[in-house]
């Protein structure tokens, strides 16, 4: 219960507007570095939010809450999976708790709302989970950096390439009907069709679709070689479960966006998840020694396999820690701080490989094609079966800016700056 001490001591009464509090200048170099973390601790994606906070705290506990010689203080706020709440909490962290930087959020709509807010005031905002393409492409905001995160369309492209290499030529897709779905599915379809593949049909369904049977009925009859799905959370669980119960599993191979087989989805599931293939930067079943070490430490602490959320926030914290070291923990000069983050290479992360940021603040990864298999403990996890080195958010042609979108939709444009 130490994470809210600051707010409790100085501002509890002020929150209801009864006590005046003089404006406190931004934290002095002598005081602690204050990091405001926002995560959905209630609402639809509460489980992921909990793991975000766990992963973030785990890193700082390992480092004794120290960075660049300064103490690190973490203030956690619940964004309730709701953009209005996220915006309010961001205001509170910036204007009342006087944090030095904002971190987190899970759902794209919460992240976009906060990004719109920090655009106006220059507060550094790090988004290891928010994958909306625009934030590091067309509508880039200089103080928003995707440390240890990824762009929605980044990983489906190598997956499409891998599918073509398996001899799949005809794909049908099913995706959540919102930007994150459009971008991932768009990235896949663009690369797939450029490589000579054919998209037979695309289905878009609303978030939290309880019943996939209407779509599965249509998917089954298209005659596709492979089905690509882009689902998150409960939708992912339902799709895979219903895919199996309709007898499609084993008939048509299922590939998908990385969030489909994230641990947060598959850890409560059974054999219906086996064999699903996705592409990602992180695979908890990798035999890289650094990954093994992290997975073991995480398992010891929380008695479960790490999800994307725990991994990303842990690595994001490491990135900031590394960037603060050469500055001796000075965050007051935001431009210098942001520049240091952009220059920092992530070396020792659970990935076990070196990760750099591109000029737009998005990391370049060695991407694994990973498959769900049962491990020695009888748990399902993701194991790499192929690797695509140095994949940026722009796939193979950094100059062409092949922006993803709905296939027939968005025109490529040059970025604003």
């Amino acid at each position, binding site marked *: 219960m130490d994470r*809210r001490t600051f*707010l*409790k001591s100085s*501002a*509890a009464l*002020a*929150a*209801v*507007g009864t006590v*005046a*509090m*003089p*404006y406190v200048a931004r934290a002095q170099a002598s005081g602690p570095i204050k990091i405001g973390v926002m995560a959905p*601790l*209630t609402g639809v994606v509460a489980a992921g939010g909990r793991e975000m906070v766990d992963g973030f705290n785990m890193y700082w506990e390992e480092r004794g809450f120290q960075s660049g010689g300064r103490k690190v203080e973490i203030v956690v*706020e*619940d964004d*309730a999976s*709701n*953009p*209005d709440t996220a*915006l*309010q*909490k961001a*205001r*509170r962290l910036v*204007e*009342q708790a006087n944090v030095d930087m904002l971190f987190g959020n899970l*759902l*794209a*709509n919460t992240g*976009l*709302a906060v990004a*719109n*807010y920090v655009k*106006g005031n220059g507060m550094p905002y790090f988004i290891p989970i928010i994958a*909306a393409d625009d934030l590091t492409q067309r509508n880039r905001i200089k103080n928003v950096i995707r440390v240890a995160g990824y762009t929605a369309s980044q990983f489906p492209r190598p997956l499409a390439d891998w599918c073509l290499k398996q001899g799949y030529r005809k794909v049908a897709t099913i995706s959540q*009907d*919102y*930007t994150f779905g459009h971008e991932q599915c768009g990235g896949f379809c663009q690369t797939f069709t450029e490589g000579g593949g054919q998209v037979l049909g695309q289905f878009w369904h*609303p*978030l939290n679709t309880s019943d996939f049977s209407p779509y599965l009925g249509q998917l089954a009859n298209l005659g596709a070689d492979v089905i690509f799905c882009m689902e998150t959370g409960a939708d992912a669980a339902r799709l895979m479960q219903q895919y199996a119960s309709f007898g499609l599993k084993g008939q048509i191979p299922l590939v998908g966006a990385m969030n489909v087989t994230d641990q947060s989805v598959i850890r409560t599931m059974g054999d219906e998840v086996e064999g699903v293939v996705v592409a990602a930067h992180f695979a908890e079943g990798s035999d890289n020694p650094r990954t093994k070490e992290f997975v073991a430490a995480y398992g010891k602490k929380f008695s479960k396999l790490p999800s994307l959320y725990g991994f990303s926030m842990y690595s994001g914290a490491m990135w900031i820690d590394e960037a603060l070291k050469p500055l001796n923990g000075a965050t007051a000069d935001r431009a210098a701080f942001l520049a240091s983050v952009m220059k920092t290479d992530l070396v020792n992360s659970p990935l076990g490989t070196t990760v750099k940021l591109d000029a737009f603040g998005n990391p370049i990864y060695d991407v694994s094609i990973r498959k769900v298999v049962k491990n020695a403990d009888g748990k399902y996890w993701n194991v790499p079966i192929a690797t695509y080195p140095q994949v940026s958010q722009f796939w193979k042609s950094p100059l062409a800016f092949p922006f993803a979108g709905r296939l027939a939709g968005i025109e490529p444009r040059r970025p604003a700056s």
Partner: protein
Amino acid sequence: MASPAPNPAPDSTALPARDTGMSRLAMGAIALGALAFAVLPLILPTYQVSILTEVLIFAVLAMAVDILAGYTGRTPLCHGAIFGVSTYVVVYWTSQMGGSPYVGVGLGIAAATFVAAIFALLAIRTSGVYFLLLTLALGMIVWGVCLRWTSVTGGENGLRGAVRPAALADGFSFYYAVFAAVAVVAFVMWRFVRSPFGLTLRGIRDSESRMRSLGYNVPAHLFLAFTISGFFAGIAGALYAMFNDFVSPSTVGLSQSVEGLLMAITGGIGTLFGAFIGSFAIIGLENLVSLYTERWQSVLGAMFVLIMIFAPEGILGRIRSFVAQRRR
């Protein structure tokens, strides 16, 4: 209407409402409240000023709910949707069409009024829980459209932009702009509920059949009351668009309608200005509670339960009946 309770209240379908007689005491309290809202920002830090701005905006929403729930005897669960339609239109107009924010506010309020008029046509034939359920369903349609009509509403991600005019960019001047607007709106609403039209609505609330036999056109009155209430909710929604520079489906969601109704109830149904107390209490409590725990949902739920059992007349209603008893 048959009721299973041993001693059914005379009007079991409505929440208990307090009628407004404006005493000198009440005048004094209002002046004091207004003074507090005028002075507080001078001494509060910026975050608290933004909270206070939100309190004022939601007080207007709660007053709009109160016009129907307290003065007309029809408890709605769709005002969040009407409010949010206005927010959507304002943000769309300024961010997607590049239009002027002032025109956007006008369009937003007009859109909200229009939606309210349509809802009114469908809903005024019902009363009691059926009215509640029908308005809930109508609100869900708005939410569904905002969620799925991605090309216009931005779907789940919503719309972002810089809605606020440059003159009101900082939170401090924006607060006073909202304060002025809300003061005018509150005054207009106060005059409205005390006008002959407002008194007729109260007559309908107390006995629809009596008013009908007296020759009043009850459906027309209900229609107008609903539409006017929607107009005020639209004003709140437009202010909210400027406050947040952002809108998403959660702004038109059921929880927004519930929150608006809860604020009106907490303050006191049929007290109009109780909305300020309700809005202040709910938003203040939410901010205070979330410092200590993530269990805001439970706290809100418990508050709902306790108010319904112990103080359905709300805070201001409670004070009023207390004062009335002392006088006797």
